[in-house]
């Protein structure tokens, strides 16, 4: 080992190490341009100059090539060093005055311009490209030619190289972006498109899949890595300080013994390439909806700015085309989520760029989820334009690269309009590997390739013990996916109740540090939340401000403070900076406080020494149009959090014994199902039903679109509930009083004037709902006007009124999607479709009309909608402000509507 002194600090390095390496070990920064960790030292650019102090004076050397010697004394920051480096930068600027990296480095040394004649050559002759090609890739396609002022880097004979493998290494290492691969190689350069950015950005052949990947670990793309393809390069191995690169790593096979399996392989996007007429892949400004999601994302290709790929300029008008790969002959289902994601994308796009004109071309607006209709109405208020038409083609205007869409207007007229960008709302497909998965587990798939499930067993496959959840069982949105995930887990838990808890290992935390008597040392972490905060408030200035507040010893900003790697970083910083109070300024403690508290525990800090400032929900979200004001308020909120954090004390939690029984309120289908699931898991359940009979609304359902018999099913469920040893049923009963809280509730059930006390650890409210009793369309005044529920019963009873009806009209959205009740009742469209199919099947001569506003036959209901049309059911649309009118004739009812 050799010991030398750099800037008065002693350092030990191995024999043969350079001064640069020794300085690096001390954390002393020396600028470099031609140096590359995985290449031999070269000493061409001379910006790494240092001063070596000897007994007979001092001299200047390039640190990247000069070997460290025993007892050597090196200075990196003397005036002589700085002056010489400044001179080097002036010379480099003369050669490449526009190279951003050189300009940036020069500026750090106060050099903004050069006194020498400018040569305007991008190449600074650092030789990195030549060396990487030769040393690492073993190719040698480029080399230095000529001498003196004629010296340059070239392909032999200035021709395209036949031996170049177009790996792009020269392009990557070049500090001045001087390499144009197309001028070097005869082979076609193949940039690797980022899967995560949906092809809108490039990536390397070793990469971290996406910013919040778990685990956040680099992966090597073996199909494209030059080391695997040609046995060359290996640069990443040189760079990785953790020594984590292992080219010999192989897939491992693990055996796991399990009693149940939950399959959730998700979905794939419909391949928009199959829709050539819509211009995807032919026109750069036609994107898929997932690509547009990436455009909107702060971690996306343009950091959340909406730019169109052809010219990276802000678009003026964006059009969405719905149902691309959905509701078609060869794909006879609705993808369920596209109407809402297009609406969401349009709203967010307008938030990012206020003057953006957003238009959505759709067939039916399927805003059937909770709160969705309100969101749709909000989009319309914000100026999102909805046009009810499915354009058949998209054409590019060559000069502007805008896109021309021809469509039919509401009045039947044809219009042509140009848009700067077109987004295809691509549908959901089962994953391409699903067949293999299904074969492996022995489960059946439906005709579309999704998992086959039954209406009464939505998360069960055709094989016992194998459950499904999420879009694998059919297209669905996030809430339904999360529900099914819990449901799948619940089913598995019931199956495996004997084994519960046997594989659990408890998390160990480091012992808690005693911070009593310590001066507060506060660390502040300020989150950009992608663009949610950073897009509006000036986060770096808030960080600087936080640093000036009393007792704040550290502050930083994070793109996402909640990401896994940031948690690790916070844990590290708590120890490194000896923090005893932590503040995160980000979103709502409601969702994220437990996470950050846990991070404090991981660092041995009491979790109550943590404070959160909500600078998103209560700041940037409400002050989007006032970035200055939002920044100011965020500073106020951080200052308040700091003031409180200084006085925080460690607290300790108590524990409470849990009552393991449950209370379920409502004996309808949902309540009984929940009670049975819990009872099957071994928990005692009190089931309270206010009526004298179990079944709720389900008692009135006599048929289902899937063909199952609801009443038979109901009888079976009621029988199971009544005979289950773990369920106590209280009929004609109500909960009259509730005391206690989680783990230990105490409720009073009143039944026939008698009161019973039940203790329970948890409660499920399944109190049901009811059918609206219409006041419109002569309901209650004319006996020929009935509800769908009644029709369902009449069909089941084979009533004469139904059998003899020659013409039946149905009106949708009665009492729904109105000002006083602005939500969609979700099931009425399928009810109408179900009953009209039944009418047509019983008597094809019966005329059936369905007057609707949007047919919301989501998911696989679309098949039944098509079947109804094939059977001759006529669907006629009406507008909310132009409703059908009814007149009661002697013989028949007369319904007038506008078609």
């Amino acid at each position, binding site marked *: 080992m050799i010991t030398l002194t750099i800037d008065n600090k002693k350092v030990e390095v191995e024999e043969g190490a350079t001064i640069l390496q020794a300085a690096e070990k001390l954390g002393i920064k020396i600028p470099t341009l031609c140096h590359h960790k995985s290449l031999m030292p070269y000493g061409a650019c001379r910006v790494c100059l240092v001063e070596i102090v000897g007994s007979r004076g001092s001299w200047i050397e390039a640190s990247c090539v000069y070997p460290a010697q025993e007892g050597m004394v090196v200075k990196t920051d003397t005036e002589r060093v700085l002056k010489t480096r400044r001179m080097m930068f002036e010379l480099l600027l003369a050669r490449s005055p526009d190279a951003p990296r050189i300009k940036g480095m020069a500026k750090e040394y106060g050099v903004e311009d050069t006194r020498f004649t400018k040569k305007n050559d991008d190449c600074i002759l650092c030789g990195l490209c030549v060396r990487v090609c030769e040393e690492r890739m073993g190719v040698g396609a480029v080399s230095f030619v000529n001498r003196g002022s004629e010296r340059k880097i070239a392909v032999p004979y200035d021709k395209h190289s036949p031996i170049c493998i177009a790996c792009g290494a020269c392009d990557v290492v070049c500090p001045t972006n001087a390499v144009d691969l197309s001028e070097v190689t005869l082979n076609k350069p193949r940039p690797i498109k980022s899967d995560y950015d949906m092809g809108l950005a490039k990536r390397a052949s070793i990469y971290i899949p996406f910013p919040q990947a778990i685990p956040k670990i680099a992966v090597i793309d073996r199909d494209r890595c030059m080391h695997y393809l040609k046995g060359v390069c290996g640069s990443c191995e040189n760079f990785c300080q953790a020594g984590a690169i292992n080219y010999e790593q192989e897939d491992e096979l693990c055996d796991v013994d399990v009693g149940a399996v939950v399959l959730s392989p998700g979905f794939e996007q419909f391949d928009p390439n199959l829709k050539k007429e819509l211009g995807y892949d032919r026109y750069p400004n036609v994107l898929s909806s997932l690509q547009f999601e990436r455009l909107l994302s702060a971690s996306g290709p343009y950091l959340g700015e909406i730019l169109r790929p052809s010219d990276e300029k802000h678009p003026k008008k964006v059009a969405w085309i719905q149902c691309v790969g959905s509701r078609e002959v060869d794909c006879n289902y609705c993808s369920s989520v596209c109407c809402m994601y297009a609406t969401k994308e349009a709203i967010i796009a307008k938030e990012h760029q206020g003057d953006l004109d957003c238009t959505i071309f759709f067939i039916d607006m399927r805003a059937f989820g909770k*709160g969705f209709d309100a969101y749709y109405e909000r989009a319309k208020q914000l100026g999102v334009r909805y046009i009810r038409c499915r354009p058949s083609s998209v054409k590019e205007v060559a000069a502007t690269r805008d896109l021309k869409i021809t469509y039919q207007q509401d009045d039947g007229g044809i219009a042509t309009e140009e848009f700067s960008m077109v987004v295809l709302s691509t549908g959901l497909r089962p994953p391409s590997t699903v067949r293999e998965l299904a074969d492996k587990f022995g489960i059946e798939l439906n005709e579309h390739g999704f998992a086959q499930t039954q209406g009464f067993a939505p998360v069960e496959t055709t094989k016992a013990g194998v459950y499904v959840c999420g879009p694998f069982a059919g297209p669905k949105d996030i809430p339904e996916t*999360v529900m099914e995930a819990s*449901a799948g887990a619940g089913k598995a838990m019931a199956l495996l109740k004997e084994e519960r808890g046997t594989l659990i290992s408890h998390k160990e935390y480091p012992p808690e540090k005693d911070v009593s008597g310590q001066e507060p040392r506060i660390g502040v972490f300020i989150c950009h939340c992608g663009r949610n905060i950073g897009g509006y408030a000036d986060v770096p200035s808030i960080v600087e401000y936080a640093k000036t507040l009393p007792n704040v010893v550290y502050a930083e900003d994070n793109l996402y403070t909640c990401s896994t790697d940031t948690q690790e970083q916070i844990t590290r910083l708590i120890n490194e900076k000896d923090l005893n109070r932590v503040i995160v300024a980000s979103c709502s403690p409601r969702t994220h406080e437990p996470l950050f508290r846990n991070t404090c525990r991981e660092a041995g800090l009491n979790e109550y020494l943590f404070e959160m400032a909500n600078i998103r929900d209560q700041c940037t979200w409400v002050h989007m149009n006032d970035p200055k004001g939002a920044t100011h308020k965020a500073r106020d909120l951080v200052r308040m959090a700091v003031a409180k954090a200084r006085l925080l004390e460690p607290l300790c939690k108590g*524990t409470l014994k849990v009552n393991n029984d449950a209370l379920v309120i409502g004996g309808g289908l949902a309540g009984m199902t929940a009670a049975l699931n819990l009872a099957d898991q071994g928990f005692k359940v009190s089931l309270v039903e206010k009526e004298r009979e179990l079944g709720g609304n389900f008692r009135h359902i006599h048929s289902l679109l899937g063909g199952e018999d609801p009443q038979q099913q109901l009888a079976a469920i009621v029988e199971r509930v009544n005979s289950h040893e773990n369920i106590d049923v209280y009929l004609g009963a109500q909960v009259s009083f509730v005391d206690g*809280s989680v783990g*230990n509730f105490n409720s009073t059930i009143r039944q026939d004037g008698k009161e019973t006390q039940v203790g329970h650890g948890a409660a499920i409210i*399944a109190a049901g709902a009811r059918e609206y009793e*219409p006041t419109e369309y002569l309901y209650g005044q004319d006996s020929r006007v009935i509800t769908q529920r009644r029709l369902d019963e009449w069909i089941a009873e084979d009533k004469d009124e139904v059998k003899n009806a*020659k013409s039946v009209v149905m009106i949708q959205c009665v009492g729904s999607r109105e000002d006083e009740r602005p939500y969609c009742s979700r099931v009425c469209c399928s009810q109408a479709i179900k009953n009209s199919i039944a009418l047509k099947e019983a008597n094809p001569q019966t005329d059936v009309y369905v007057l609707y506003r949007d047919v919301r036959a989501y998911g696989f209901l679309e098949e039944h909608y098509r079947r109804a049309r094939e059977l001759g059911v006529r669907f006629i649309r009406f507008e909310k402000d132009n409703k059908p009118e009814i007149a009661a004739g002697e013989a028949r009812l007369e319904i007038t509507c506008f078609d």
Partner: protein
Amino acid sequence: MLNMPICIEADLLVLSAAIIPNEDVDELGRLFKVPLNQDKFFLEAHMKLRPVDFATDGVFMCGLAHSPKSVSESIAQADAAAARAATILSKDEIELDAKISEIIDANCDGCAYCIDPCPYKALTLIEYMYKGSIKKTVERDAALCKGCGVCMATCPKKGIFVRGFKLEQISAMVEAALIGE
């Protein structure tokens, strides 16, 4: 699309009537201290990520009381609610939040002003012997207290406070807010 009014004669007119909430949902919401949305369906803790949980721990929802839905969606949600409830029921004990009220015996004189306002019935008046005389104070049930702070706001003698929300901590925040940059 004919772009004109049409008249259809019908023997039966079938109305697709809305699904509306039951009348007793307000009462249920009050009993379990859980919220309803503006349409009077029960409001989940998070629209996307916690679709069967209430913000109140230990209470879950499923079926039409949450929002209109189909038979199989009701069943899936019911199984989900059961699974979520089981995460609590399957434990022997649970941790309680530390941010709950705490009595300062030296300040509390047992005036009992705090007892009735407590929405969780977590406080009881007790008597004890101190240096030969009977003294009064209140006792807090850690399982029931949610740390809402009503007691702290009611107490005229600074005899009770909520951990993590001490008067000096709140004052420091208010002062910081008022002081400006």
